[in-house]
């Protein structure tokens, strides 16, 4: 049973026609030309320098957790830029389209974006920022750092790790494709029901949104399984539970959320898929469907997802603040307890996203109370960071600046979040830009956490530090931009401005909208300094030591900088919480291993990247209802997975002599250096 669709359909091309390509829109054509030019330059450079085999062997087919992490972060940064441009367009539209006399260009009555485009832009902004920018960057950080912090060789499932990456990339690629072929959803990143159902959204936009999220959420679930297994099973000898660094603890709690929450999203989207493709009535208005069910399911995933995003930055701050205060973290045990308290309470607060949907006062009161409870462990964390700084010796390097800014944002975001959790206040600002400003404070904590972590661990991965001068300029312009965008936005919320407006009907809102636009300009300047920081750092390449900051406390600073592909020449024996600090105190931090034992390493595999490409083809086929394409891609994925299970490759052995040789010339063993070519093992006795 296939539903009735508006518009033509053919067996060969499905719903895809030439009209789907918006060649008449100068913004999209310009974007396409820019993206195509950059893409061609990259491809030409790779071919000219004959780097294709290197790219294939060392990156596309790699199962090394550090390289996978780096690719996650690159993906996240690219999508962060795309999401920022969406934000720039929204802010600019709102500053132009004020009042009935405002000018309009490019087919819009007011501003430069007709509602059709504006609605796609805001939907894409939310989807991209949360699912394709924040999530991959945090997944990448966890991938790189967690195995290093627990003294592991790699993740528990290196092959699954690569599959996670390429599934996430396939989802991101579908979103980028929606810009040039067809359209994106206009029903917000949450999928507003019943607006996302066929009667109100007959085009392919919602399908793009649905399949992009579905693919990447599979990747995120696999990654959560991987992180949990790694932390539970792969800890070095002596690394007991309460010697785990807090960043590893939060990755465990966040992965438990990921493993348990993302399947709920998968089910909700699958039921919506059945509605849109088979004509069922799960979330429709009539025929016994109930769209409130979708809203509940979505937020049962959606709120834990918020804590899934915010917990890793808490872990980052918990690493950075002690390092640059030259003191151990205050209240380690309560920090761990608070992380799991946040993750646990996160499951019981979802209905605070719809206090205005007519729940009774008792139910609203319950969800209000549960939400306020989150404030307790969050407050504890802030106090613990503060008392880590207390009687410390603080140096304000770039990572420390980001961490302090993140804690300020957390205080302000937490305060406004407590306001919103009271229904009496929520009835006045729900769905207003006050809410937008609040959760941007919170996701800016994620952004500051991510930038802090990138600056902090960059030398560990690449062997040289990021440029501090430009890094600080990037920091100050970014923080100033955030203040100038979001403080006026709180004001607009109190003036009553509602969210998702492509035309501003109240001219009184104009002054603060102009202020927000100034903040956006500051953000643009901060991007310039970010790029300059990367450029200057790559040009100068000031080498960093093993303990790059000189005051590192945890295990990752004990191995070489940059980290060799086998992580540790000899699996370390752990003696204390903050192992490196303990060894430094006992004069053991400079001791090098004398004898080596062979290391068993996983071989590269092309199957994950092939699965990624096939998953994208499957998604594209489903979106445009090109059944042969979707069917063939799905079949090929199944064949690839089965074929891989017959692969007898058991990895390879790095001999003790090779390790000794590599250890004497560590620059050969960096993350960007090549692995030795080696015939795979048929059989392996033990790890």
């Amino acid at each position: 049973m296939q539903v009735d669709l508006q518009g033509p359909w053919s067996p060969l091309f499905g719903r895809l026609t030439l009209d789907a390509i918006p060649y008449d829109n100068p913004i999209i054509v310009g974007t396409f030309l820019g993206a195509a030019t950059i893409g061609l330059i990259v491809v030409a450079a790779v071919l000219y320098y004959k780097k294709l085999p290197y790219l294939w062997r060392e990156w596309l087919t790699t199962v090394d957790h550090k390289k996978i992490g780096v690719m996650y972060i690159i993906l996240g940064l690219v999508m962060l830029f795309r999401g920022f441009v969406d934000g720039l367009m929204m802010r600019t539209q709102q500053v132009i389209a004020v009042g009935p006399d405002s000018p309009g260009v490019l087919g819009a009555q007011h501003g430069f974006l007709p509602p059709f485009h504006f609605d796609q832009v805001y939907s894409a902004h939310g989807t991209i920022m949360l699912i394709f920018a924040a999530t991959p960057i945090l997944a990448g950080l966890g991938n790189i750092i967690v195995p290093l912090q627990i003294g592991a060789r790699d993740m528990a499932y290196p092959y699954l790790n690569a599959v996670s990456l390429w599934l996430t990339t396939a989802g991101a690629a579908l979103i980028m494709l929606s810009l040039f072929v067809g359209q994106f959803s206009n029903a917000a990143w949450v999928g507003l029901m019943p607006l996302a159902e066929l009667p109100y959204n007959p085009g392919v936009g919602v399908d793009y949104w649905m399949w992009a999220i579905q693919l990447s959420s599979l990747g995120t679930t696999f990654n959560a399984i991987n992180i949990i297994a790694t932390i539970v099973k792969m800890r070095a000898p002596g690394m007991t539970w309460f010697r785990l660094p807090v960043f590893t603890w939060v990755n465990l709690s966040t992965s438990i959320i990921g493993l348990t929450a993302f399947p709920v999203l998968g089910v909700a989207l699958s039921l919506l898929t059945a509605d849109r493709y088979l004509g069922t009535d799960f979330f429709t208005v009539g025929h016994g469907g109930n769209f409130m069910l979708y809203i509940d399911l979505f937020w049962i995933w959606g709120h834990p997802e918020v804590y899934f995003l915010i917990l890793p930055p808490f872990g980052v701050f918990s690493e950075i603040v002690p390092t640059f205060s030259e003191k151990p973290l205050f209240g380690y045990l309560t920090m761990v307890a608070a992380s799991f308290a946040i993750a646990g309470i996160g499951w019981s607060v979802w209905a605070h996203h719809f206090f205005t949907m007519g729940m009774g006062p008792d139910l609203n009161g319950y969800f209000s109370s549960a939400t306020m409870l989150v404030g307790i462990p969050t407050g504890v964390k802030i106090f613990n960071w503060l008392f880590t700084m207390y009687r410390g010796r603080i140096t304000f390097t770039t990572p420390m600046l980001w961490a302090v800014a993140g804690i300020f944002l957390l205080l302000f975001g937490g305060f406004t979040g407590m306001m919103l959790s009271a229904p009496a206040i929520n009835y006045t600002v729900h769905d207003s830009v006050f809410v937008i400003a609040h959760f941007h404070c919170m996701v800016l904590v994620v952004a500051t956490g991510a930038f802090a972590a990138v600056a902090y661990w960059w030398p560990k991965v690449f062997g040289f530090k990021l440029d501090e001068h430009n890094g600080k300029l990037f920091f100050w312009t970014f923080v100033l931009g955030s203040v100038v965008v979001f403080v006026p936005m709180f004001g607009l919320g109190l003036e009553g401005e509602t969210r998702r407006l492509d035309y501003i009907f109240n001219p009184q809102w104009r002054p603060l909208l102009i202020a927000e636009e100034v903040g956006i300009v500051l953000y643009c300047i901060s991007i310039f300094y970010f790029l300059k920081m990367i450029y200057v750092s790559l040009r100068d390449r000031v080498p960093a030591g093993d303990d790059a900051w000189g005051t590192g406390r945890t295990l990752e600073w004990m191995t070489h900088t940059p980290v060799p592909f086998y992580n540790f020449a000899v699996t370390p024996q752990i003696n204390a919480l903050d192992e490196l600090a303990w060894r430094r105190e006992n004069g053991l931090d400079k001791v090098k291993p004398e004898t080596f034992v062979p290391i068993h390493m996983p071989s590269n595999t092309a199957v994950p990247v092939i699965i990624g490409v096939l998953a994208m083809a499957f998604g594209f086929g489903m979106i445009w209802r090109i059944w042969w394409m979707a069917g063939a891609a799905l079949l090929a994925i199944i064949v690839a997975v089965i074929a891989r299970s017959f692969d007898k490759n058991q990895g390879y052995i790095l001999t003790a002599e090779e390790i000794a040789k590599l250890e004497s010339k560590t620059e050969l063993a960096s993350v960007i250096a090549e692995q030795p070519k080696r015939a795979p093992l048929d059989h392996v006795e033990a790890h």
Partner: protein
Amino acid sequence: MRFLRHFALCAPLLLLAGCSTVNFALFHPVGRVAEAEYHYTLLLVGVMMIIILPTFLLMVIFPLRYRKSRNATYAPNWSHSTIIEILAWGVPVAITAVLIHYSFVGVYAVNPYSPDALDGSPGSALPPIKVDVVTTDWQWFFIYPDQHIATIDDLVVPAGRRVVLRLTSTSVMNGFYIPRVAPMIDAMPGMRTEDSFEVDQPGTFEGFSTDFSGAGFSWMQFSTRVVSQADFDAWAKTVQANPNTLPYATFTQLAHPTVNFGAKPAYFSAPDPELFDKVVRDAMNGVAYPVPDSLTESVSSNEGKALVPAPASP
């Protein structure tokens, strides 16, 4: 660097100095329900400040005081203090308990279905003014079952009377909201929600939809005019005399997707007495008012002319 740092600290103050509170609708509530919302906003924020302000101060003082260059006291291994940890958990627990108490009191005070804030109000002695609110894509229908009149995008109520609204939608979700007067409540297809408010003095207030509903969402406003009882009665009489009637068949014509630029009002006499129930029943039976692909893809081509001819004004 120093300049940037100082500017970063001062920028928000500059912005605050640049605007008075006149524009801040939520600081100027009208009527008992909105005033209760404002009261609980101030009360809860006040309680939160007991913990937020000292924390903020510590966050400013500690990083400045314990900079390496200041050579302040350094305790390289100090990482535990039972007293501080008990306080770090205990104070937030105590503050949160107080907040939860006031949140529960507040949610009953402004409960849209039956706000405690209206207990003993002048209007509670009189029978309430009933208004049925039906949202379409993208207009507001206000139906007065007792006065036998209906309007589009114009809500007129008498001062000093309790107004009780029933809300539903023909198509997708919308949020009903009059910032200075009435708490927000969603209008949902196939379902019924309620809202209540009471204003003592005449005045005109802006209302609009808060929950995104598609291409015409940004033009989905309505005016709320609170008038004296005598003016309301006179106004109702004028509309009752309007030759345009609103039987259900006419309503279903008007319910098709229409962008009402500028929220131009329209008035009807003799609306179908069961209109609200029929809208709910139809939605539950799967009657939809689909948005044509052309309107989701390019509203600009339809701008300036509504898809369905606008009904005549009185």
